[in-house]
């Protein structure tokens, strides 16, 4: 038996062991019994001691003594036969399966840490088995039995008789012609020696010696040996070390089950299914290569049947059937002996010594003299016969044949030629290659083999070299290749290997492979060559030879050789790690086809170390898929699912079909994993991806309590984008808070309710018990097939105030009881969509609403859902999508080194507080310019505690009036018309706040628990068309004791309205009667609404003036040509129609107020009214509108100068100090508007301010004029204190252009055109600043 593994042999030892002399053993049944006491056969008994302990001496033919160091004898049962093909294949497979090595070493190449196995025992075991199962061939003699040992027992009463019988049997074997197995080196004179085993513990030594003497006298002194063993009773305990453990290879019985599980391709279909990825079949690709090498696919393991040629040539007379019927020596391969029992239990140290001594003795006394004798005989034969064999026939043959094997074989174009040549060779071989055993060529070869086996490599090389030339001359290619191979080995063993001898080996392999078609021998030669080349560090050569030996006929061999080749690439200089990666993949592929799952798995994982993070997407997918499949088969489900998860990563280049099959397998694997190890709980999903940055949390959610048609306050929408809006809200909030705090100093910090990536939660968000918290998150499907999500839930953990922790994780664990599940579910109520479908590579938002019923600290951990492919909803997988805590990007201003963590998913839940619900009556989405809409606000306290006070803040107070608003003071602008304010101490910020903040329900408390109140309010659309927004912010303070965390709460509302232009009004003041100096107001009106059916009715004109009132008797309609009868009155303006009229002004008595009047009385004094052409139900409509005299009328707003929030103190002071005298015209109108098949009645007010005579004021479009006016006043440094018409008398003297004409009393616009342009420019600047 050949031993190559586990002993740390170097290359020379390995070659020596492979070519050690083979000694046949035949034993009598009694001798067998003796050995079996040790649980061993005689052959096995000798295995550990087969190496000679001392040097032996060997004399060659010239009589020179050569010392043979470390000679090893290879004992072999004569009845042993190489196993038949099927069994041999099984043995090879199992040798690989059973050899595992999980220990790894790390090698760093090109910055990549490669984890490689420390050793490859599977390869060594396979090589050993491969060499062991070879049939002895005809062209070489190293595997032929050199001599024979006949083993007898001293206890045998008829020892001579038994010896005779055995001798007879052996001689029969040796003399049979043609030769059968086993083959004998020199069948004519085999050395038969006799060994008598004596059992020291039982037998009588003297009796044994008697028998031995008898034997000696019969068979000769030097052929008989007496060995005394078993000096210990086998029942007694023996602490001898087990020398045999490493040598004896019986398949342990327990392995049978595991091996089938681990490897053993149960059926070809399964073997294929392991490696075949639906669209990835590497195997098919490799077939191309195979076909180049192999024409005839032969079973790899039977040299007998390599090819027809070979069968005929090698003169095996035994038919293949007879080989199949041969039984394998049970001592060697069968399982009958208990493998686990200790060996050598009856052997004492003395016995071991005896055995050692016997081997040495046998070699020196019997074997070597015999070999010396053989050498002499063979040498003589060679010398004598030289020249004789040069037969006429072989000479003739040389005429036909090129003497280089495969001269044209490498040339692909000459395949036909090669084929013909091969056939030709075959014919020749059959005809002429009847080398008899006595032929000189074979004698030379035999001589070489003998020298080689006994370590005389110099002479061996010479002999092989000679043989090689002879065989070459005879074109006996198989013999030639064998001789070449051995010559190369001799040179290597001699230490004189060089380029040429390596080429011998190369030639031998090529010859075996291409000419002789002997895969087996080519493989063996490659394995031997590998050892030689490795010693010479020619690793790339090794790799080349190994790769050449991969073929389709043996996946296992290809796999092993490819793996070895891959390792060779790593030790070349420089290392080729990418070649390694490729070949280890190829090896893994072959392993999986050979059913070696563990090895396939290992190879692919090794390859992945190179390929990972390199973006070779498809290659990576192939590796991951194979790893996943193999891991699944090997029941390493966590590995498998990890790899499957990798296949579903975003950016994969796989097709939709492919991905859906990946998904299916992933779901199956994960489910299997969960089923097998339920303690893992919820596993993270690979699909869909949770877009971590998209997580939004909203802690303030409007309770849905408004009854339609009431509209609830819009509040904050969780999906509202981050806009500059937020700063406007914060400004309003700041004003509210300061007003509410009645100027107590504090640091304002805007309250936060919405937390997103852009608005990270640096502080812990607060949630209120019993109030819902919204959470939205985007889920992305990274694969090309649609998926369905069901059973969607949030996973959370709540730490109560008493530090008790509850979580709904337990709901998803099988172990917990249903009661606790129910308790947990009651703690926090979660509502969201029941199912969600994600289209291929789509991203979708998922909304959750959590309502906490308890207080404490809440952490939201992740989303639980059940994922299934849309195509196969039955196969679903429950898993978890985890939230990751996001890092807050430090702002550029604060370069703090510590990273802040976003805490938007760990909320603090505080006890219940009052909650204000705000709702409104609906406002149309489209309004006309200047239209006034009544709105009633319903305030309701939903909490259990009263609300102390409520404030309302607004960003555009001009457009809003409140009914219950108590104006204690006049607006500053109106006040300034009464007295000079420039010396009053007015605080800018306070005035700004006063304009924008209103206190609602001025009582204590504002709203009791569960109480509701309604407030009337009007909104006026601006006079410019376009989009219009109005923001309302409600502030309500909480009772101080109620909650330390929240001092006040806010409700937001925003209106987005589209404003359409409708009525265009122009007015100017003229002197209508030069004689009476009566002033007239020319008013032009035009309906500019886009839709034709709109009808506008002008109800009334009101004049707000200090000095004048409208003459109610005089209304001169200048143009009523386009007036038509409408649905609501006789005179209406249809679309695009216009009309004009004039009314006259009367001077009023100067107003006299003893002190500052109230707003109401001031308005009352200054207003005068004139009905124009009212609609039929104008009175009725007016009831819904605030009358102009009321403080909450929009006239008051119009007359108020609203300060910009970022106005400078200088501007503020200038504004309040100056009063520009003017009159204001208020045109009250109604309109019938057709909107979406609905007719709507709208009413509104247009205001026109007039400053000077002949100046045209217009509305809309008056804004710019106002600015121009203001500016021109500033430029002029005007100190006019009175309204324009009054200038009349007073100003006459100051007018430089003073004239008798009344007209001159109107102040003409004195600016030159160019000046005006300049002014206008400045106006723009102002507008922009505003």
């Amino acid at each position, binding site marked *: 038996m050949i031993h190559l593994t586990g002993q740390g042999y170097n290359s020379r030892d390995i070659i020596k062991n492979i070519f050690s002399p083979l000694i046949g053993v035949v034993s009598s049944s009694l001798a067998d019994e003796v050995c079996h006491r040790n649980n061993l056969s005689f052959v096995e008994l000798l295995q550990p001691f087969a190496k000679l302990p001392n040097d032996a001496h060997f004399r060659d033919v010239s009589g020179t003594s050569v010392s043979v160091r470390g000679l090893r004898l290879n004992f072999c049962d004569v009845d042993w036969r190489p196993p038949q093909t099927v069994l041999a294949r099984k043995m090879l497979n199992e040798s690989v399966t059973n050899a595992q090595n999980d220990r790894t070493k790390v090698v760093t190449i090109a910055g990549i840490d490669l984890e490689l196995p420390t050793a490859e025992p599977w390869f060594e075991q396979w090589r050993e088995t491969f060499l062991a199962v070879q049939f002895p061939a005809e062209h070489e003699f190293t595997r032929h039995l050199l001599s024979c040992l006949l083993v007898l027992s001293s206890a045998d009463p008829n020892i001579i008789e038994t010896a005779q019988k055995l001798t007879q049997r052996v001689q029969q074997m040796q003399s049979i012609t043609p030769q059968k197995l086993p083959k004998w080196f020199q069948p004519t004179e085999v050395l038969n020696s006799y060994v008598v085993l004596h059992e020291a513990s039982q037998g009588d030594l003297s009796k044994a010696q008697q028998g031995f003497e008898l034997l000696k006298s019969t068979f000769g002194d030097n052929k008989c040996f007496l060995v005394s063993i078993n000096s210990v009773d086998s029942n007694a305990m023996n602490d001898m070390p087990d020398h045999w453990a490493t040598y004896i290879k019986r398949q342990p019985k327990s392995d049978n089950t595991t091996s089938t599980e681990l490897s053993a391709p149960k059926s070809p279909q399964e073997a294929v299914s392991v490696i075949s990825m639906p669209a990835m079949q590497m195997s098919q690709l490799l077939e191309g*290569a195979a076909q180049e090498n192999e024409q005839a696919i032969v079973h790899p393991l039977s040299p007998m049947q390599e090819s027809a040629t070979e069968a005929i040539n090698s003169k095996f007379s035994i038919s293949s059937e007879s080989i199949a019927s041969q039984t394998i020596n049970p001592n060697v391969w069968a399982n009958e002996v208990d493998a686990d029992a200790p060996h050598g239990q009856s052997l004492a140290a003395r016995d071991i010594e005896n055995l050692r001594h016997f081997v040495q003795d046998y070699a020196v006394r019997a074997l070597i003299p015999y070999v010396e004798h053989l050498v002499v005989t063979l040498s003589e034969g060679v010398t004598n016969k030289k020249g004789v064999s040069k037969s006429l026939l072989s000479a003739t043959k040389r005429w036909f044949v090129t003497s280089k094997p495969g001269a044209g074989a490498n040339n692909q174009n000459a395949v036909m030629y090669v084929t013909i040549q091969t056939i030709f060779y075959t014919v020749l071989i059959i005809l002429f290659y009847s080398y008899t055993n006595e032929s000189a060529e074979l004698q030379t070869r035999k001589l070489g083999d003998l020298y080689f086996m006994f370590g005389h490599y110099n002479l061996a090389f010479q002999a092989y070299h000679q043989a090689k030339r002879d065989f070459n001359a005879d074109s006996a290619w198989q013999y030639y290749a064998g001789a070449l191979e051995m010559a190369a080995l001799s040179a290597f063993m001699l230490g004189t290997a060089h380029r040429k001898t390596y080429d011998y080996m190369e030639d031998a392999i090529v010859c075996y492979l291409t000419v002789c078609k002997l895969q087996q021998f080519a493989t063996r030669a490659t394995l031997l060559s590998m050892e030689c080349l490795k010693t010479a560090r020619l690793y790339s050569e090794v790799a080349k030879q190994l790769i050449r030996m991969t073929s389709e006929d043996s996946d296992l061999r290809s796999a092993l050789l490819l793996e070895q080749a891959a390792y060779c690439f790593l030790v070349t200089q420089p290392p080729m790690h990418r*070649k390694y*990666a490729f070949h280890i*993949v190829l090896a893994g592929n072959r392993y999986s086809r050979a059913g070696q799952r563990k090895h396939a798995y290992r190879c692919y994982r090794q390859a992945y170390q190179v390929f990972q993070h390199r*973006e*070779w997407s*498809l*290659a990576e997918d192939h590796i991951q898929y194979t790893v996943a499949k193999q891991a699944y088969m090997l029941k390493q489900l966590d590995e498998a699912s990890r790899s499957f998860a990798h296949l579903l990563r975003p950016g994969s280049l796989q*097709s939709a079909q492919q991905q859906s099959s990946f998904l299916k397998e992933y779901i199956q694997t994960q489910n299997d994993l969960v089923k097998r190890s339920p303690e893992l709980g919820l596993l993270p999903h690979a699909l869909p991806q949770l877009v971590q940055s998209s997580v939004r949390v909203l802690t303030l959610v409007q309770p849905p309590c408004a009854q339609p048609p009431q509209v609830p306050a819009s509040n904050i929408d969780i999906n509202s984008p981050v806009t500059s809006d937020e700063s406007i809200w914060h400004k309003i909030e700041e004003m509210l808070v300061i007003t509410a705090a009645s100027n107590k100093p504090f640091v304002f910090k805007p309250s936060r309710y919405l937390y997103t990536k852009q608005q990270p939660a640096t502080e812990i968000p607060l949630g209120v018990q019993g109030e819902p918290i919204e959470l939205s998150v985007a889920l992305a499907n990274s694969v090309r097939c649609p998926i369905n999500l069901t059973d969607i839930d949030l996973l959370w953990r709540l730490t109560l105030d008493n530090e008790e922790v509850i979580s709904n994780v337990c709901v998803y664990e099988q172990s917990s009881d249903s009661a606790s599940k129910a308790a947990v579910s009651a703690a926090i109520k979660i509502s969201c969509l029941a199912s969600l479908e994600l289209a291929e590579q789509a991203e979708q938002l998922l909304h959750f609403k959590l309502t906490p019923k308890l207080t404490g600290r809440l952490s939201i951990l992740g989303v639980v859902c059940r994922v299934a492919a849309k195509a196969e909803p039955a196969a679903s997988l429950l898993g978890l999508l985890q939230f990751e805590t996001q890092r807050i990007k430090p702002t550029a201003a604060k370069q703090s080194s510590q990273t802040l963590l976003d805490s938007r998913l760990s909320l603090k839940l505080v006890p219940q507080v009052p909650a204000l619900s705000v709702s409104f009556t609906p406002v149309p989405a489209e309004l006309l310019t200047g239209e006034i809409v009544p709105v009633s606000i319903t305030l309701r306290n939903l909490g259990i505690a009263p609300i102390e006070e409520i404030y309302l803040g607004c960003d555009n107070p001009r457009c809003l009036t409140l009914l219950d608003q108590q104006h204690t003071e006049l607006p500053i602008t109106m006040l300034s018309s009464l007295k000079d304010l420039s010396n009053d101490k007015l605080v800018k910020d306070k005035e700004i706040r006063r304009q924008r903040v209103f206190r609602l329900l001025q009582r204590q408390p504002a709203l009791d628990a569960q109480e509701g109140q309604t407030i009337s309010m009007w909104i006026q659309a601006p006079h410019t068309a376009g989009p219009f927004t109005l923001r309302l912010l409600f502030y309500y303070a909480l009772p101080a004791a109620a909650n330390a965390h929240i001092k006040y709460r806010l409700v937001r509302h925003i209106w987005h309205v589209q404003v359409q232009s409708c009525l265009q009004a122009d007015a100017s003041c003229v002197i209508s009667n030069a004689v009476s100096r009566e002033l007239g107001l020319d008013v032009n009106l035009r309906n500019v609404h886009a839709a034709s059916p709109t009808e506008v009715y002008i109800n009334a004109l009101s004049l707000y003036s200090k000095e004048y009132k409208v003459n109610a008797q005089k209304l001169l309609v200048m143009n009523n040509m386009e007036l038509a009868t409408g649905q609501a009155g006789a005179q209406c303006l249809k679309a695009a129609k216009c009309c004009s009229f004039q009314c006259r002004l009367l001077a009023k008595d100067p107003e006299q107020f003893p002190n500052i009047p109230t707003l109401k009385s001031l308005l009352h004094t200054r207003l005068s009214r004139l009905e124009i052409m009212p609609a039929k139900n104008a009175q009725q409509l007016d009831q819904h509108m605030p009358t102009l005299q009321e403080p909450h009328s929009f006239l008051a707003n119009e007359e108020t100068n609203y300060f910009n929030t970022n106005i400078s103190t200088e501007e503020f002071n200038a504004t309040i100090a100056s009063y520009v005298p003017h009159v204001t015209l208020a045109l009250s109108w109604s309109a019938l508007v057709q909107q979406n098949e609905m007719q709507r009645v709208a009413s509104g007010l247009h205001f026109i301010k007039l400053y000077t005579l002949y100046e045209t004021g217009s509305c809309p479009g008056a804004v710019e004029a106002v600015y121009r006016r203001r500016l021109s006043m500033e430029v002029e440094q005007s100190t006019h204190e009175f309204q324009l018409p009054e200038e009349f008398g007073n100003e006459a003297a100051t007018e430089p252009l003073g004239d008798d004409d009344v007209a001159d009393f109107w102040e003409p616009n004195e600016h030159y055109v160019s000046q005006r342009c300049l002014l206008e420019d400045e106006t723009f600047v102002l507008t922009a600043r505003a």
Partner: protein
Amino acid sequence: MSTYYFAIVGHNDNPIYEKEFSTVNKEQRKEDHRHLSQFIAHASLDLVDEHKWKTANMQLKSIDRFNQWFVSAFITASQIRFIIVHDNKNDEGIKNFFNEMYDTYIKHSMNSFYKINTPIKSPMFEKKSEIFGRKYLLS
């Protein structure tokens, strides 16, 4: 019946551009080759390393083969590697293709918004490679 797999490989052995050219139409072609092409191209990088110092030329010609596939390579001055895995000989065409692609690559790398070693996603580049592929490889 010829297929070409072209890859530009960055300094970290990562493909920054991949393209396949084939005369075989899509339905007939087996998808199988795609990952194998990647394996072959990746394995040939070792041979590019071996050959690149042996010649002053940027064209490295045919440097490797695996079964019926040949690998031709080109290396730029900045050690960006162009690899073509092909199944029939077309030295002249490949040479021209490499030269044109080199030109295109240089222009693309001048774009200050392109970071070296990152995947090339320019539609212009894609179009050019399509044109040159059709012109030199498939014709």
